[in-house]
């Protein structure tokens, strides 16, 4: 197993309070250690990181990278592939695709940027096999997937009847059955209505047949999450996504989860950290940019980010990721079918192609190609909101940087987003190229804040790992952590935020990406194909309760178009499966 020293780099490891200290990072048998013996040092691979920065491997806590809707995006967009091609090498596959790359290209492109861990944001239960099949073929990355449960018939029935314990037993069974990692809730109560051509637009509007409200679903899932003690909190895609004026329902939705206390009960070994690595949030809001809109229509559309950020600043139970809009081509894809229909109507001049799917008793999905233009007033405001949501929230431990790939933009634009966060000049220069509404209808132009490298490390690895419950091994360089390290060609001594092109270049191609103590990419070139792991949760619940719950499942299983035996995802679908025992008898944390 690899033994390695990353020497003399300026280390940014927020979970261990290390802010640019020049030091060595030691890795033995793929794990970070505090030191190596002299004989180990002699045979260790040495990476010279002098004059460079060293961070834990990047962690993406929200990206659409595997499964049926991603593949629908690939299938409907051959034009997305023709101009974006990666050639094969002796060790790496060829691949193509810009906004919806093929699985191989996706893994290599992430690795080239110093990322080692990516979580798929939305796995419908019925598409779990497909999702795991794609993840099995994705190289370079450790992965897991959140399962979509916000419009699930069984759960809506339990919530309506107030049977929260049975709901928890059902969720536990779904995690094990589909090898899922966390609970994702998309447009609660609304997607079920979309099956009837409708939606819900408030938290207290009962939906059709199930007569359950968004408030009840959010509260129920947040409670179930903490009854089980899941690694990640409830991951929420709020109602009214993409609608002007939605910041208010977003704030109210987050407030619902304030009634639930976080309780992470995992049976894992925790690597050493100085900062408490347990999550403190009971709700993790996805892609806040799409849910921080002001105004009442597209005519008086403006940012609502300052209002939403004010709430997040006061709330201690919330973490957000931003879902930045870095301009350019995107493919919008979500379990929120009606929001994609709205976008189709909005952008549909000329009959644009799109796709929408109903997923039986579980959820829905929609996909549409979209381009964010600097000249478009709406796109310019969305760009501003995406950055405001990170810059206006004072505590970086409440924020994570994403583009909601490929919804706001592609993940390969992360270096550009980092530049905007770190450099006021980068923002001003872009604002000057944009429609004037970008600055006129947001507060971004008045924001002086320029994030430090320490804060960027929080937003792109430390807090992503902490929020999703992977800080026991990811997102930091404490003893016992996975030996995942990114070395970037930035000299902190000579760092100048005005020279933002340099930031973009440095974060675009990591000098070294190290996974489990092995250099896997160098200056953007893939040099080794590492083993990868797939994480999922195995929550323990009372057996009697589980039996009662299974009787309910079997009663309604007749409404599915497949047989019960074909529903579960066998473990053979996963490459190096790593079940995390949750709420186990031994107690855990």
């Amino acid at each position, binding site marked *: 197993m690899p033994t390695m020293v990353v020497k003399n780099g300026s280390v940014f490891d927020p979970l261990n309070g290390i802010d640019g200290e020049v030091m060595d990072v030691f890795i033995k048998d793929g794990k970070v250690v505090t030191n190596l013996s002299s004989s180990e040092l002699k045979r260790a691979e040495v990476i010279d990181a002098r004059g460079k920065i060293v961070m834990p491997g990047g962690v993406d806590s929200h990206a659409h990278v595997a499964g049926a809707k991603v593949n629908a995006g690939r299938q409907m967009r051959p*034009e997305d592939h023709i101009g974006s091609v990666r050639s094969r090498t002796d060790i790496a596959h060829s691949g193509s695709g810009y906004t919806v790359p093929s699985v191989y290209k996706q893994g290599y492109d992430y690795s080239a940027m110093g990322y080692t861990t990516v979580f798929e944001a939305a796995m419908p239960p019925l598409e779990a096999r497909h999702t795991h099949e794609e993840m099995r073929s994705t190289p370079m990355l450790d992965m897991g997937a959140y399962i979509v449960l916000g419009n699930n018939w069984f759960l809506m029935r339990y919530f309506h009847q107030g049977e929260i314990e049975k709901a928890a037993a059902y969720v536990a069974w779904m995690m094990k059955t589909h090898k899922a990692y966390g609970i994702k809730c998309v447009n609660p109560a609304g997607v079920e209505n979309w099956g009837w051509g409708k939606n819900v637009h408030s938290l207290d509007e009962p939906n059709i047949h199930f007569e359950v409200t968004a408030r009840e679903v959010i509260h129920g899932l947040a409670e179930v999450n903490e009854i089980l003690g899941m690694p990640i909190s409830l991951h929420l895609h709020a109602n009214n996504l993409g609608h002007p004026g939605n910041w208010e329902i977003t704030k109210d939705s987050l407030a619902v989860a304030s009634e639930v206390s976080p309780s992470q009960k995992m049976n894992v070994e925790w690597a050493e950290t100085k900062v408490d690595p347990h999550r403190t949030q009971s709700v993790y809001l996805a892609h806040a940019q799409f849910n921080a809109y002001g105004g009442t229509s597209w005519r008086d559309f403006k940012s609502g980010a300052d209002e939403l950020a004010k709430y997040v600043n006061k709330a201690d139970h919330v973490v957000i990721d931003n879902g930045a809009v870095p301009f350019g081509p995107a493919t919008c894809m979500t379990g929120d079918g009606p929001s994609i229909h709205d976008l189709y109507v909005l952008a549909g*001049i*000329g*009959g644009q192609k799109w796709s929408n799917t109903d997923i039986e008793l579980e959820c829905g999905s929609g996909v549409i190609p979209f381009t964010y233009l600097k000249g478009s007033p709406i796109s310019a405001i969305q760009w501003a909101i995406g950055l405001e949501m990170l810059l206006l929230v004072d505590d970086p431990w409440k924020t994570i940087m994403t583009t909601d790939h490929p919804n706001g933009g592609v993940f390969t634009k992360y270096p550009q987003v980092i530049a905007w966060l770190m450099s006021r000049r980068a923002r001003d220069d872009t604002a000057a190229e944009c429609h004037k509404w970008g600055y006129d209808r947001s507060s971004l132009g008045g924001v002086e804040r320029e994030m430090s490298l320490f804060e960027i490390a929080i937003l792109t690895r430390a807090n992503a790992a902490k929020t999703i419950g992977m800080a026991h091994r990811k997102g930091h360089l404490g003893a016992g952590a996975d030996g995942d390290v990114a070395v970037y060609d930035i000299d902190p001594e000579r760092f100048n935020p005005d020279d933002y092109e340099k930031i973009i270049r440095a974060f675009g191609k990591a000098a070294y990406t190290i996974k489990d103590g092995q250099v896997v990419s160098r200056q953007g070139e893939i040099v080794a194909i590492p083993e990868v792991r797939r994480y999922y949760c195995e929550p323990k619940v009372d057996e009697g309760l589980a039996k009662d719950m299974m009787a309910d499942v079997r009663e309604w299983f007749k409404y599915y178009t497949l047989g019960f035996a074909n529903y579960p995802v066998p473990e053979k679908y996963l490459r190096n499966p790593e079940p995390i025992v949750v709420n186990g008898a031994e107690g855990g944390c």
Partner: protein
Amino acid sequence: MALTRKVRLTPNGEIGIMIEAESVTPDSFAGKSESELREIAVWQGPREVPLSEFFDLEAWDEDGDGTVEILIDGDASRVKRIGQGMTKGKIEISGSAGMHLGSEMAGGEILVRGNAGPWAGMNMRGGRIEVFGDVGDHTGSAYRGSWRGMSGGNILVHGNARSQLGGGMSGGEIVVDGSVENFCGIRQSGGVILVKKDAVRGVGAEMIGGSIAVLGRILQFTPGFVASGSEKEPALGERKIEGEFAKFVGDYAIAKNPKGALYVREGMA
């Protein structure tokens, strides 16, 4: 006086798996010796093969304009992508050409004495393609999945064309002396299509701009078009077409205020 480089390629046998010859352009031939030209690689399936495996090659210089002229002296119907992306010079094919002839072409000229396969002039930006025989589907069309295709240049077909001629076209001109099949000018937003004989159905479907004229019959007329009077010798781009024409505007099925003009000879619609 500038010298024109002339290169003659003569097929030296049957081609099994079709070859992809995007390297056969005046641009990539320029400045190369005869032996270098023989070594130019083309793809056959997964392997790269020198051009000389499929063609005997002669090159010589003549007084001229300094460009490169390629003559393929025989059948090239199993050769794809001839002239892809070319910006200047001339290619003449005495037989037929395979798929993707002159796709993404920006300048220069291609002459085909026989037929051309599907996708000739795909995403073409400039230059000229003339085919004396028939052409396949998607001639002058956009790449699959894309909304914008040919933006400039000219395609002249003396025979017939098949379906989706000029799909997604935003500029340039396509003239077909014969007939077309389905969805000629689908999603057209600019440019000109002239069909001198008949069309089957779907002419101008989803078009929002540009002009199409069909001088023969249209078997099934596209439903989203409305009559907009008649015109004598209407202008089709820079070209005037003789006769009395009924003008239709569409496609209202796809846009609120479409600007696509469809001309049909009076009495033929």
